[in-house]
């Protein structure tokens, strides 16, 4: 991440701006950029959302599909994340260039959503022990302008909020159960996403902690802490990224910065 090709002088400039709590675009260290959130924009999906965070642009579509349950957990439905790093976003994603970043983002999302309270997994099960809904969450990166993980997680949550799962009726037959999907497009249920986490990344630039870093700022930071947080204030996934290391106390501080953004998951 962060390949804006900055010179030493530019880096020093950003470092100083963070020191003064007055960043290049006029924000303070703990200010997010203006965010645009749009839902229900692709009619072919069951739920979709688009998030624009300054230059970062992410589109998410969710499709639902009926599949046999996982024999290890026969009473719940499943979520799967796929990230498509389109070469439109940055030339670096051409060919297989974006694969690594894509799998990192999907791994982080998978972990953040891996706890039982994330969404109501039980409501995603159609027939316990047999059929459940599998939600394919497809993320398309349209433009990268820093803070990808946060933008993606917000878009995913919004798309899940927007999700319409068709109601299925079961009729018991001799020798089996038949599943019927209703034709009425308004016969659907929503998914409860109040417990769903979003990811907040705190970058360490110099000795200061910065949220929602732009691409330039990301290049100046040697280490960042990514946390999946829920509205209730619990942490559902944590990961350190970047080539630098962190002091244990500094991690606590960064986690605290994070908890100050707990209002965010409520969006």
């Amino acid at each position, binding site marked *: 991440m962060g390949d804006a090709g900055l010179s030493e002088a530019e880096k020093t400039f950003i470092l100083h701006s963070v020191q003064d709590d007055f960043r290049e675009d006029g924000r303070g260290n703990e200010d997010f950029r203006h965010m645009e959130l749009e839902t229900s924009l692709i009619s072919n999906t069951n739920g979709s959302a688009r998030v624009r965070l300054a230059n970062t642009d992410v589109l998410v579509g969710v499709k639902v599909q009926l599949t046999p349950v996982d024999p290890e957990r026969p009473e719940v439905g499943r979520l799967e994340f796929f990230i498509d790093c389109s070469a439109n976003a940055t030339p670096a994603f051409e060919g297989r260039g974006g694969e690594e970043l894509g799998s990192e983002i*999907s791994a982080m999302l*998978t972990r953040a959503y891996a*706890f*039982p309270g994330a969404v109501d997994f039980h409501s995603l099960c159609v027939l316990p022990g047999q059929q459940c809904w599998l939600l394919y969450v497809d993320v398309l990166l349209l433009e990268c302008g820093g803070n990808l993980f946060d933008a993606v997680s917000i878009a995913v949550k919004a798309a899940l909020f927007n999700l319409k799962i068709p109601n299925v009726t079961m009729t018991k037959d001799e020798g089996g159960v038949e599943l019927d999907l209703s034709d009425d497009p308004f016969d659907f249920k929503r998914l409860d996403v109040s417990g769903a986490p979003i990811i907040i990344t705190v970058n360490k630039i110099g000795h200061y902690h910065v949220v929602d870093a732009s691409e330039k700022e990301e290049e100046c930071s040697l280490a960042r802490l990514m946390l999946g947080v829920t509205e209730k*204030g619990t942490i559902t996934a*944590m*990961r*350190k990224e*970047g080539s630098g290391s962190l002091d244990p106390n500094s991690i606590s501080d960064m*986690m605290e910065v994070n908890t100050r953004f707990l209002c965010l998951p409520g969006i």
Partner: protein
Amino acid sequence: MPLDTRRLTGPESSQSPYNFAPVNKLDLTQLDKRPDGRSIKKLRPLFLRTNVVSQARGSSYIEMNETKVICAVYGPREVLRREDFSLKGQLTCDFKFTTFSCRQRRQYQQDSQEKDLSVLVLEALEPAVCLHKYPKSQINIFITVLQHDGSALSAAITCASVALASAGIEMYDLVVASSAAICGSVTLIDPTAQEEDALLKATVKPDNNAGSVTVAFLPSLSQVSAISSDGELSFEILNKSMQECVANCQKLYPVLEHTLVKHQQELEAGRS
């Protein structure tokens, strides 16, 4: 899964016999003694050895009771692709569970969990290696888990850092990793696979804590090089268990030092 044409594949419909075996549940919150007889704060004994793979530049083997991991380091070797050249050295990591290492048989191809773990190991080691000393070259780390009985990630990180050191790669510090599983108000240090499994299946109330955390620590610089957590945890509990993991890493550090001193002595004995 794409069809594997270069291996002998068995019938598609086979199942593990354990799928049909009765399950005995382990309740972590009502635990006075752990299944292996440890107290909840006790680490498993650590066995470390270097020089286990004769063909590698450096290698090591770690054993934490039933968790067994082997790691080999090759390089620094020349970067073959021209576009990959950089003035900083590159570190690559390949993390693999053997097919027989877990209770359920694993696939030969690297799955997404293994890819995720490769990245985590890499991120834990990168801050410790003086990569600027190895321009235009790459160092390859290969980690194979022979047997997985919990805390495989922390074992792999510790093992890999010892392998790097035994390969003579210049480093700022060793990396020691330690993990903990949290269930409700109980924090289990160095969990086994059975405990990790029970945690996944535990039916805790929504507001309760259930999760695990792994910390990689640079003991003499007193810096955390990687931290990763899973499951739903509150800020205070996570912070507390992180401190506990850091303290445990400090405890394990002398074992690593001792192993490397022994490694050096063996080298010198071999020379003279």
